């Protein structure tokens, strides 16, 4: 079968894309410390921890988790992080955000804060903390361009490791009701024979997806 016929017969591009994706291993752990459940008028807010000096939880990852938790059959209303943090400025800034549930209890004594949280209908605050690290970079790719054309030759690979924790605080009882941890690792490869072909492990995307699915079930009390 010629390539053109092969493509014409509808070889799905998504399958090709899938074949070009490297493998990822994801582990999710759940530690429950209290009962959970959420009413339809209630919401959650997912916030990234940014107190560390070595890393900050990326806003994109927090948004990814929020977006996935708010869809599907067990969809939960999620207040966007930026909207919540701006609305409650300066109480949830990196320097001032509550680190323990007792800090949240003290913070809720501020009438302005309590009113805003009630206005949003926030039942749970989820603190996401973690990062993706790239290690074991090996190989090299050389590219050259000449009058007759150009091309690359070589091989590169690296390993990505995403580690994220989500701590769930119940705003009604000022208690930490549980922690969900996700660890995703994957090796990416870029072989290059004339054209570089990236085989990228979607490590952070898988960590986001796994964490969001588990978090949705956890909050719904499933």
């Amino acid at each position, binding site marked *: 079968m010629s390539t053109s016929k092969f493509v014409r017969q509808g070889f799905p591009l998504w399958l090709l894309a899938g074949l070009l994706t490297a493998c990822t291993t994801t582990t999710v752990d759940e530690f429950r410390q209290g009962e959970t459940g959420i009413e339809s008028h209630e919401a959650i807010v997912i916030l990234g921890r940014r107190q560390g000096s070595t890393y*900050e939880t990326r806003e994109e990852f927090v948004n990814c988790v929020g977006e996935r938790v708010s869809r599907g059959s067990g969809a939960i209303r999620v207040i966007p992080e930026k909207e919540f943090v701006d609305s*409650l*400025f*300066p109480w949830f800034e990196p320097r001032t955000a509550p680190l323990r549930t007792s800090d949240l209890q003290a913070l809720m004594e501020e009438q*302005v804060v309590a009113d805003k949280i009630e206005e949003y209908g926030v039942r749970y605050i989820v603190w996401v903390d973690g990062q993706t690290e790239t290690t074991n970079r090996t190989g090299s790719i050389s590219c050259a361009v000449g009058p007759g054309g150009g091309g690359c030759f070589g091989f590169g690979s690296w390993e990505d490791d995403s580690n994220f924790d989500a701590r769930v605080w119940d705003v009604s009882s000022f208690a930490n009701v549980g922690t969900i941890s996700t660890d995703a690792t994957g090796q990416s490869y870029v072989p290059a024979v004339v054209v570089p072909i990236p085989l990228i492990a979607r490590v952070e995307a898988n960590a986001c997806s796994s964490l969001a699915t588990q978090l949705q079930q956890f909050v719904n009390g499933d």
Partner: protein
Amino acid sequence: MFAVTGNRKTTATRSLRVLAVLGMLALLSACGASSLVVEGSYPTPAVRKIPLSLGLYLDENLRNFLYIEYTETGAEEYRVSSGQTHVQMFSNLLPAMFERVQVLESMDDAAAAGVDAVFAPSIEEFQLALPQKTRLDSYEVWVKYNMRLLGPDGAYIADWVLTSYGKTPMEGLLSVEGGINEATVSALRDLASNFTLSFGAVPEVRDWLASRQNVVSNQ
């Protein structure tokens, strides 16, 4: 005939001169410092208002604050103007903290404005850390302020130092200017947050607030 040739020569010479000047200008602009006016937006604090009237005096140095980052050879690399964004931040922050805020053009206007005190901040130090120099993957800005609270007659009430820090990752940024802008806005946001929550805890300010509270309750 000769006249025509002469005119053509003159035109050609002029064109060459113009091209040479443009070329020189292009070279000079490539070597010159890149200028940046910091722009950002700041949220309004959700805090209880202090039932006092405050005069806000931002002097010329703060309003036109310019930081110049130099290369290792001492040439100007980046000129960062953050005066106007400071004005915007303070103008947004203080009306959320005090019952009434009046912007003063001069310290001499304080008594006539009938304010309880005048707040006059100044920038003491501004530091910028660029990824190409630090080998880190983020832009960082660190600013040291001297905060002054004065009576309407210019008398000392409080004087304290506040520092602010802002950082933004390189990832997703299209230019160095964008990184400097984001890090500066982040530092100003940090200042706004720190100032809002620490204002009442500065010992001299706390005493002054308590004394004003007594005056108000005795009236």
